[in-house]
């Protein structure tokens, strides 16, 4: 069963990350790297992607005279996607456990970030009957 694990943050949250010390950031990346390697080894890893910062986000709504209508204005409270993991696991509990580990990755001062991670199952594609 495929699940997507979504990590989001407001703009304020992101600039908070900028203030982390080098050792805190290294510890965080090391934990995530370890989780990734485990998932690759267990065959549960499908993909992961990081997105560039919300600063650069654009909203596109249709076009006017053949030119896309874009703007970069978002409410302060908007939660931006920072990145995601896609895993292929046997049970929902396994997906939640993986999300829990990512959430427990250390942040400033080595304290777990406890970042909330949204877990969504992919719509099942109907099996071919022919």
């Amino acid at each position, binding site marked *: 069963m495929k699940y997507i694990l979504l990590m989001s943050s407001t703009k304020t949250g*992101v*600039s908070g990350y*900028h*203030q*982390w*010390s*080098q050792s805190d*950031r*290294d510890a965080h*990346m*090391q934990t995530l790297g370890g989780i990734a390697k485990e998932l690759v080894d267990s065959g549960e890893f499908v993909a992961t992607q*990081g997105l*560039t*910062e919300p*600063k*650069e986000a654009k909203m596109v709504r249709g076009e006017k005279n053949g030119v896309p209508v874009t703007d970069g204005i978002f409410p302060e409270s908007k939660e931006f996607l920072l990145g995601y993991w896609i895993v292929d696991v046997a049970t929902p509990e396994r997906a939640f456990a993986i999300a829990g580990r990512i959430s427990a990755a250390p942040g400033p001062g080595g304290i777990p970030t406890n970042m909330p991670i949204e877990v969504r199952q992919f719509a099942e594609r109907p099996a071919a009957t022919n």
Partner: protein
Amino acid sequence: MSGPAAELPIEHLLRELAPQVLGAIARRFRDFSSAEDAVQEALLAAFRQWPKEGIPENRRGWLIRVASRRMTDMMRSEIARRERESAATPEEEPAIEPVEEIEADMDPEDTLILLFMCCHPALSPSSAIALTLRAVGGLTTVEIANAFLVPEATMAQRISRAKQSIRTSGVPFRAPNPQERGERLPAVLHVLYLIFSEGYASSIGAQLQRLDLAREAIRLTRGARALLPEDTEVAGLLALMLLTDARRRARTGLEGELIPLDKQDRSLWDRDEIAEGTALLTLALSKGTVGLYQLQAAIAAVHDEAVQAADTDWPQILALYELLQRVAPSPMVTLNHSIAAAMVHGPARGLERLRLLDGDERMRGHYRLDAVRGHFFEMMGDFRKAVQHYRMAAARTTSLPEKNYLLTQAARLEETASEPNS
């Protein structure tokens, strides 16, 4: 079964042979696009069969035979389709060409023809890159797709459309005349340079089974140099690649982090590549012309000859950037020029030069502008502003290793600035 060349892995053998076979088939059948498909299939067949049955003595002949059979099959089924649809008089069946005849027609210039065709200015950069790697480089679609992290089907489509563009534009399969060569060589060099840059940029961090694109670019450029031995910009490009590639083992740290030039362990630099690159450059420059790749290579050579970062001949680098500004101005050149200016005349001068870019649309929001500014403020001891700019650059960069590097710099500076005796 086979001679010393059997020691080489099969894919290396195949990559060398691929453009030769493609040239022969494209010329004989006068259909570059279908020939390219047929040759790909022959390569894949060789890849499957040679490990089991042994490498044939006449490898090229084998590939030509398989590819031309495929071409004739494709032509036959096309004829059959047309006959079914129109009930016209039966067309003549295409004859099976003897391999020896096809080989007799071969021209050492074929690879050059292919290179010019695949790097045609009408193609977008990513199309030209994909097609060049396949048709001239002999790489498989899967290898190229993996190198660029796109699905195989997408890369196959990209290559197919590139060939379609070539077909529609009617580019003939013949050697470019001297004038065409002069006009179109820059596009060829640009594509090779892009392949190298992509390969070198992705050499940061842990290595996967990814194809070494930087090495591929060097191999292709060596090929170009063999075909155009008198051309100084081809030599300059090859020199630039070698002088840059020489540093690759030093640019990644143990955790896969980025290490900038001035902090690299220079004992890890490849001295042979540096020697080769420098010799090539000296030869090219002795011919009197000065082009953009030769200048960039010269700058790389000055960096590479410094035993330690502190020994770097910055005044020479500054002079070279001044020349580069005249030969091939660009915002990136201005940026790098400002760094050299700062190293020679102090960071205030560097900042002055950077202001030239403030109005430049092309640089607006570009992370390097903030990164370099941050560096100058750090040099001046204005840590608060340096940290600010490093963080702005980190927010803007699209590269994860660069982002981490910039945030680390900012964190380090902040810790230094808050120390009691700083």
